[in-house]
């Protein structure tokens, strides 16, 4: 691995977004923007995102990983995360990638809410394609699941010596401050098909594949990945999510469309 080919930097109009650019050895012919998920999923996926970026850079793609405002190494506090800002940041990042790689055609990839951001930003950011791994389509369900996990966390005697109070866990989701604004935004999230080819990589526990229909048709496909990914498992909250099948699926797709 060439360390000089992975460049950490800050970018954006205010220089407040963190990015890691993976430059391919030969001149790039295509580019991939990696939209991260939010909250603890971002931390759990960091290693996998890096592995995927390195695999794709070796395949000849220019890749940009980045953090939205209020997440990761980007400026802003966790309570300042804003859905519209995340979508806008994906657009800023895509233009940064175009400028660095000298390529106009950008494919976007994202896991969970990162996939949702990529879909929501697809037209504005002019993505040529979106590859979404278990994207969140209905924010209401997602909010309910996180609320339930937060309540379970309060009583988790594996983590705490004694149960915590409601006040201790209020206005947070699994380690992160959650503003009322983001909660409302996510509760109202209801994604529709983006006007670009869309590949959904499905590794959610058994459930009807038809759930993806409204975002993949008519210009898209669904591919299953096994084993299921334990996104919402409190016992694995601090375990990295690693998936060789995911890396193979994404790199295979990008080879197909090369």
């Amino acid at each position, binding site marked *: *691995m060439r*360390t*000089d080919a*992975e*460049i*950490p*930097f*800050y970018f954006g109009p205010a*220089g*407040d977004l*963190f990015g*890691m650019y993976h430059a391919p050895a030969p001149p790039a012919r295509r580019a991939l923007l990696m939209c991260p998920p939010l909250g*603890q999923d971002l*931390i759990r996926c*960091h*290693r996998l995102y*890096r592995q995927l970026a390195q695999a794709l850079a070796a395949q000849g793609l220019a890749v940009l990983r980045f953090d939205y405002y209020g*997440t*990761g*190494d980007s*400026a802003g*506090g*966790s309570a300042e995360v804003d859905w519209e800002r995340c979508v806008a940041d994906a657009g800023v990042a895509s233009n940064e990638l175009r400028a660095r790689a000298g390529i106009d055609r950008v494919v976007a990839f994202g896991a969970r809410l990162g996939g949702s951001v990529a879909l929501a930003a697809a037209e504005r950011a002019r993505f040529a394609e979106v590859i979404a791994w278990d994207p969140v389509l209905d924010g209401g369900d997602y909010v309910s699941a996180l609320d339930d996990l937060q309540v379970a*966390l309060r009583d988790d005697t594996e*983590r*705490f*010596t*004694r149960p*915590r109070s409601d006040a*201790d*866990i209020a*206005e*947070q989701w*699994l*380690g*992160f*401050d959650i503003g009322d604004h983001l909660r409302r935004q996510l509760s109202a999230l209801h994604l529709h098909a983006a006007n670009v080819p869309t590949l959904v990589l499905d590794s959610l526990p058994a459930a009807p594949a038809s759930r993806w229909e409204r975002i993949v048709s008519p210009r898209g496909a669904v591919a299953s990945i096994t084993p299921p990914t334990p996104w919402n498992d409190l016992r694995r909250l*601090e375990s*990295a999510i690693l998936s060789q099948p995911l890396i193979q699926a994404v790199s295979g797709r990008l080879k197909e469309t090369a």
Partner: protein
Amino acid sequence: MREEAHRFGRGCHLVGIAGVPAAATGETGVIVVNAGLVHRIGPFRLHVELTRQLNASGYPTLRFDLSTLGDSAATGGGQTRTQQVCADLDDAMSLLKARAGCERFVLVGLCSGAQNAHIVAATDPRVSGAVFLDGYAYRTIGYKLRHYLPRIVDPGRWARLLLRRGGANGGGKPVSEPVFAVAPAPREEVIADFTGMVARGMKLYLVYSGGISNYFNHARQFRECFGKVMSHPAVTTRYSAESDHTYILTGDRARLLDGIGGWLTQNFPPAAAGRHP
């Protein structure tokens, strides 16, 4: 103040974020190392919040990924992990010296990060302070009394304990058991390290949480584990029974950060930093 992203190190293999407040030249720098396998932002962004809060108080900071962790690569130099950690921290101190003029450093580490910070703090004269979060600890007699006595008065628990132990001899000389997830250092060695650190003027802040209650369960256990060096004026200890190991609740995290900030301000006042013994 704006943060800076750096690729640095002898092999240009390390990645870190430096926070350099205006007019911070010459002050003591704070370096935060990885907690376990979590990349440099720390568990639940703990390291981001910590470094930014310290920047606001005037301290230059660096949060970075050690070799092979986060976004940092391996050097391929055939070094032991200890040699690698020492070399990485040497690179980190050089970077913060170049960016902010720091001559002396405070290291902060949680769990395996505390171990790594300990290794360097014990040997590098540029390290003038260290914050060890859930660092080395050993089950002591006191630990076992506090753990088992309440269970003795509970007949149900007592029955289950006897059943589990199968009548094994518990009357021998109690032995402190190292229970760190990675190979721990012998207790005598750790005590000697702490003693050496304070002898050369270092300030230490040990904060242990309820998240390690399987081997640490009371504020008195600092002294039980490490002896009289824990009573040295240069050593501050804090036991936070209600917190978990990685400070998942924002209130617990805020109290931890305030504690570290207060300890730093008291022991390394920003205006006087860089001139410590």
